């Protein structure tokens, strides 16, 4: 047995995270089993029918660029990477008449702690991303695209490269796609361990072969993106939603979810649940239902808190979370963000100081160092939370934590500063007594913590 064979025995099969049959009306994960990722299987599931429809290769008249963008607008599809920006609107910002090269970029740099949905899309249904990108490229008059994939999920990168080869060989990518006058080249690129490259302008820098430090905006990528050319960047799951929308119509997609929050969304549930995994469910599904799909709280324990949209989103106590539905507007109203849809569940044995200690260390570690408030501030936050957790906190630390967080918020080029500050402020807001207990008694008030 070779080293490769030994390692492959420990590879995830996707059975626990993706093929568990506990999705609700899935569109992106529908019909997957781990071995049916190839072009032939994708086409058997109706794949590339949307691209054929757009290009008028299904016997129809085809769709104009404006029609495609109008359909996506009507669907109320919002960016699945974290910001939730309306996709159709973003596409309409691309200056289609720009005479030079324009680029399309897929952000598969999935590094927001808690998020692992794009990995399963890329490994088990890569063609849906290729088709979505091709349709987007057509709508915006773009001829070259890149998919930038998180370096740690190399198997997904290799799989995507294989899928690209299949698509090229079948005339679904390249010059004159399916005999039309639309041409689109698509390539895969990979990161190599930098959380910050999930930020779209840092990703562009990285794609240009530089260290991934975010750019000041404006100018926005739509006018000054990759190599200084107009560029549209969307998340993997956003592109993956597009074929269904084109096949079934914007209105049908909108009706899968709720107003202003169209379609299905994939949630990655991690932490204290019985069945961690990815769950694709309609927007607006109650959180309680999602928790039930994931088997409930681990060991039958009581829910304490949930970080609803990746580690950067403010934590919410159980009482608030149980009243939320899983969509952008409900979670925002509750004081947090749907973000990337990464739901981190914590039960009543969890110490919030310890949880924040790990997150604050992460943001310090991943700050790119460009802006002083973030470079210095994330270190302050991490060191202060660390000393509170280890029993060396001072009474003045609570005010100081808040002060440092306040001084980072809104004072940096990109959102990493805010992402580091928001968890701190939310933890203090909802679980202040735990921090005060740590400082006063030099010990944790949740003794059962493991």
């Amino acid at each position, binding site marked *: 047995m070779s080293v490769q064979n030994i390692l492959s025995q420990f590879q995830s099969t996707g059975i626990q995270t993706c093929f568990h049959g506990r999705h609700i009306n899935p569109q992106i994960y529908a019909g997957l089993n781990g071995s049916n990722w190839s072009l032939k299987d994708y086409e058997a599931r109706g794949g590339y029918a949307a691209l054929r429809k757009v290009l008028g290769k299904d016997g129809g008249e085809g769709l104009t660029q404006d029609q495609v963008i109008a359909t996506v607008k009507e669907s109320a599809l919002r960016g699945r990477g974290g910001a939730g920006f309306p996709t159709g609107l973003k596409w309409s910002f691309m200056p289609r008449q720009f005479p030079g090269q324009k680029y399309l970029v897929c952000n598969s740099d999935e590094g927001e702690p808690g998020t692992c949905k794009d990995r399963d899309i890329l490994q088990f249904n890569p063609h849906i991303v290729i088709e979505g990108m091709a349709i987007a490229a057509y709508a915006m008059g773009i001829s070259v695209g*890149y998919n930038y994939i998180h370096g740690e999920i190399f198997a997904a990168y290799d799989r995507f490269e294989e899928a690209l080869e299949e698509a090229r060989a079948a005339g679904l990518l390249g010059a004159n796609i399916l005999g039309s006058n639309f041409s689109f080249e698509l390539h895969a690129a990979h990161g190599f361990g930098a959380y910050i490259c999930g930020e779209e302008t840092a990703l562009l820098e990285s794609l240009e072969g530089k260290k991934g430090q975010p750019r000041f905006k404006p100018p926005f990528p739509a006018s000054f993106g990759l190599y200084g050319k107009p560029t549209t960047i969307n998340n993997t799951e956003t592109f993956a939603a597009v074929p269904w929308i084109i096949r079934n119509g914007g209105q049908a997609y909108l009706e899968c979810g709720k107003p202003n929050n169209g379609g299905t969304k994939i949630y990655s549930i991690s932490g204290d649940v019985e069945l*961690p995994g990815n769950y694709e469910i309609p927007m607006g599904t109650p959180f309680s239902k999602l928790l039930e799909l994931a088997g409930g709280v681990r060991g039958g324990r009581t829910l304490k808190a949930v970080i609803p949209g990746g580690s950067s989103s403010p934590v919410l106590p159980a009482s608030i979370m149980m009243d939320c539905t899983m969509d952008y507007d409900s979670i925002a109203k509750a004081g947090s963000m749907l973000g990337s849809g990464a739901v981190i569940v914590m039960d009543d044995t969890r110490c919030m100081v310890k949880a924040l200690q790990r997150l604050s260390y992460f943001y310090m570690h991943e700050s790119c160092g460009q802006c002083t408030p973030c470079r210095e501030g994330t270190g302050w936050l991490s060191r202060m939370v660390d000393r509170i957790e280890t029993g060396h906190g001072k009474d003045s630390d609570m005010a100081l934590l808040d002060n440092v967080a306040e001084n980072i918020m809104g004072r940096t080029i990109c959102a990493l500063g805010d992402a580091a500050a928001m968890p701190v402020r939310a933890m203090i807001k909802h679980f202040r007594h735990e921090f005060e207990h740590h400082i006063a008694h030099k010990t944790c008030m949740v003794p059962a913590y493991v």
Partner: protein
Amino acid sequence: MISDATKARFDKEVAKYPADQKQSAVMACLAIVQQEQGFVGADSERLVADYLGMAPIAVHEVTTFYNMYNQRPVARFKLNVCTNLPCQLREGQQTLHYIENKLGIKMGETTPDGLFTLQQSECLGACADSPVMLVNDRAMCSFMSEEKIDQLLDGLRAEVSKS
């Protein structure tokens, strides 16, 4: 000297980008160097710089910015265990400690036989598979219970001693 086989791999990456943007391939080229040599040293950085028409310092900026590039030699197997919050909630930290005890080293260290380097890592993007461990940058090992860690590490050790 870059071998012809390596050049072919570099060229495949370079071909993805516009002719005047060869630098874009630097991330992939350095990852290839690391896969073939185990680390990215100053000599390799200079060769990649020449190949892509970059200043060596610009390549060094990339090597030092991204966490996964090894700037010095590591063991035959580099083990990266995720301990970020979602993994911490599912025994990520205990997994790291278990491996420390099993191998008799602390995180960041290499076993005396040069077989294993153990590192704590940030989010690997496989949160629902926790505990997770990345081996040599490319092989994600999922649901790594103590039993499976024993199987993996003992299996690798046995395989290497055979050859």
